[in-house]
């Protein structure tokens, strides 16, 4: 990544942090920082993406404003992450989508819904679109099966390709080498799936302000696992349709509907909760320029969940047609936006955690770096073991 103003801010902050090290108990960022004395742009990008934005280090910081040093690691790192999303985006011309990302996501969603509605209105008979229909194949009278599959698959495949390209850029930029052995990958997966560093490893985080809570971790779990359940619902539905030859809609107690309903509700709880947390939380350690992208993705996910649940609730009525078109529009927009929304944080965070899992292993094997500011004890026997350069 090229050097920017935010990069220089981050470097300055880390020079202070690395000389202080009081925060090393909070998360992975500070132990990873302590492995370095100088910070390349790639190091900064890695550390910024390793940061889960728990804000513990901000409230604990003796150098936070109004101290003249003005250290604000969560804010600086959030800004840096946003720059890194743009820097690693693929294809290159689309990096501009990370500027004014909130607006981009909102517009794309609206356009997605409008396009599907208009196309449905143009090509689908009015009786099919606005008539109450039930029974297998009802959905496909509104949007033909082939169109549905082709559009979704194309959008999804593009999104995956773009995400993979972005991930590879990040990996190349920040690290040369293998992904690590099975044990390392397993450790990283555990850190990713449990959000280990968003819970302060049991202590909680400064989600909303000075108090420690587990709120954001729990809400993120609701959102993430709700999302996975919805995804599983789509996959099982595809399996039912393509392999078993059963057309949607499926019964209330069928696997796709159960997964989708449970997942949709979790997704709603998670996204609404996270939106609430963003609104009520202390603005000091937050980056205002990032509220747009954050809110945009949360609302998009909420919209996807809500329209899905509404479709389920009203699928036997005349509202089914328009609801299906809207839900499909939202999903289509979501797929297309995946690589150009805050969704990418999941990719880079996971890769950063994988790299940290590797570094952690390597560091444990090499016990020789100046570690900790030794305490200020004079004439004390125990001080002998705390000599600089000695990592007991």
């Amino acid at each position, binding site marked *: 990544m090229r050097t920017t103003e935010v990069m220089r801010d981050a470097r300055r902050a880390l*020079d*202070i942090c*690395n*000389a*202080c*090290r*009081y*925060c*090393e*108990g*909070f998360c992975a960022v500070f*132990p990873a920082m302590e492995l370095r*004395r100088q910070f390349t742009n790639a190091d900064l990008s890695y550390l910024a993406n390793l940061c889960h934005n728990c804000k*513990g*280090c901000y*409230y*604990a*910081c*003796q*150098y936070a*404003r*109004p*101290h*003249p040093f003005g250290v604000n690691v969560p804010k600086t790192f959030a800004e840096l992450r946003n720059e890194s999303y743009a820097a690693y985006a693929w294809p290159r011309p689309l990096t501009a989508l990370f500027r004014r990302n909130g607006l981009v996501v909102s517009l794309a969603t609206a356009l997605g819904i409008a396009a599907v509605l208009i196309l449905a209105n143009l090509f689908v008979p009015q009786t099919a679109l606005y008539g109450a229909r039930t029974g297998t194949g009802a959905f496909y009278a509104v949007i033909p099966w082939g169109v549905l599959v082709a559009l979704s698959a194309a959008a999804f495949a593009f999104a995956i390709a773009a995400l993979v390209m972005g991930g590879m850029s990040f990996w190349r930029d920040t690290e040369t080498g293998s992904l690590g052995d099975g044990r390392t990958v397993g450790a990283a997966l555990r850190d990713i799936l449990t959000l280990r560093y968003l819970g*302060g*490893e049991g*202590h909680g985080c400064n989600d909303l302000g*000075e*108090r*420690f809570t587990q709120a954001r971790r729990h809400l993120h779990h609701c959102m993430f696992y709700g999302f996975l359940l919805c995804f599983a619902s789509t996959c099982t539905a595809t399996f039912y349709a393509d392999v078993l030859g059963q057309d949607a809609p499926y019964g209330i107690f069928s696997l796709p509907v159960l997964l989708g309903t449970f997942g949709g509700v979790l997704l709603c709880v998670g996204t609404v909760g996270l939106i609430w947390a963003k609104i009520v939380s202390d603005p000091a350690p937050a980056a205002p320029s990032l509220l747009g992208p954050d809110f945009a993705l949360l609302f998009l996910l909420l919209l996807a969940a809500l329209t899905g649940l509404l479709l389920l609730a009203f699928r036997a009525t005349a509202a089914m047609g328009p609801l299906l078109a809207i839900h499909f529009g939202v999903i289509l927009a979501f797929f297309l936006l995946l690589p150009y929304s805050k969704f990418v944080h999941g990719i880079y965070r996971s890769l950063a955690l994988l790299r940290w899992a590797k570094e952690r292993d390597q560091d444990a094997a090499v016990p020789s*770096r*100046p*570690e*900790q*500011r*030794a*305490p*200020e*004890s*004079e*004439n*004390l*026997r*125990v*001080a*002998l*073991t*705390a*000599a*600089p*350069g*000695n*990592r*007991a």
Partner: protein
Amino acid sequence: MLDLTRLFDVLVIGGGNAALCAAITAREAGCSVLLLEHAPRAFRGGNSRHTRNLRAMHRGPTSVLTETYTEAEYWDDLLRVTGGQTDEHVARLMIRDTAEALSWLAARGVRFQPSLTGTLNLSRTNAFFLGGGKALVNALYAHAQSIGVEILYDSEVLELKLDDGAVVEAAVSSKGFPETVRARTYVASSGGFQANITWLREYWGEAADNFRIRGTPYAQGRVLKNLLDQGVGSIGDPTQCHAVAIDARAPKFDGGICTRLDCVPFSIVVNRNAERFYDEGEDVWPKRYAIWGRLVAAQEGQIAYALFDSKCETLFMPSVFPDIRADTIAGLAGKLGLDAARLEATVHAYNDAVQPGRFDGSKLDGCHTEGLTPPKTNWAQKLDAPPYIGYPLCPGITFTYLSVKVDDRARVLMDYGRPTANLFASGEIMAGNILGKGYCAGTGMAIGSVFGRIAGQEAARHAHN
């Protein structure tokens, strides 16, 4: 707005760890408590906000401390650093109470680092606050507020009016307005006077103008002086302060831990005249911090320069400001503002005196000079691998030793030995009873936590009578 005309059970003066422990304890005992913090909210917490750990005795491994650290060993450590300038009865009481201090703090929201991360060699004796002292201060303020301690920031106590050994009222400047506050009992936890340059000048002369104060600028010693002026007993050498060598580019106040320079053992250190003045390799660095603070304070202009070469670059903790480097000694002299010819001569003489040996930064390696005054007795390596690197050093004051005298119930004693009727003290303002000299990591917070609680209990008991 808080009604300051009412009579409080307990008035706590100060806003650091010791003050908060006292206020919380008194409030939990059912007292109405007002805490007056001189600093604005953002800088609350006195020097506690710059601290990191608390030294606690324990009879077995805990979640944050390994092995055991007995009263005998703690006392032995304290005796060694103070050279006997400590009140054994009070000190042992403090040591025994630290066994409970951690769980008391944890129950009130303070979080500790698990013992296995990072600081292995210290986790036997010292419990580290997760995130450091400011996180501790935040937790204690949040708890104090939640149980109903009244807190006023930007409120400096100017005077505690003593009448026949009893405090009758406190003159306060609260948010810029003069106020009088009355309480049944008073707890003075308002720290030392290390940030009061005028007062330091009384003992150090103009040199004091070149000191940096590592911690809070609010430690003005106003209450301390006011009490001593009214015949309260004192303890601790008023002329002495704990000082370490820090980066001379540090801010005047509040530079905290990150300005400390740990490169001295691997350097040669010269004064403004480009001359060495003390054995840089005398002992392991943690035992020599404070000596170097005083040594630099004794140099002209209270400034010195640590010089080393690229071999030593990564042997010590990085410090906050960039190093100063050049490819030649003369070039470095130019950048540091030293006389080039003199510095070259000093380095030349030193290089010639360095004896061959196996350098090992992790222990006393015996690599020394011969025929040089002063000698360097460990880690002596030639400066011969450019770039040459330098840091400017100046004295950074941590705290002062002068204190009010207290008994084992935290009661402030008058100079004729009788306890005051309703005045208690905790924290740095009375730390000299235990630490008359030297320092032992984590004892400041230990004294504050233990005596804060004792002062709070005693004040509450007195207020109820």
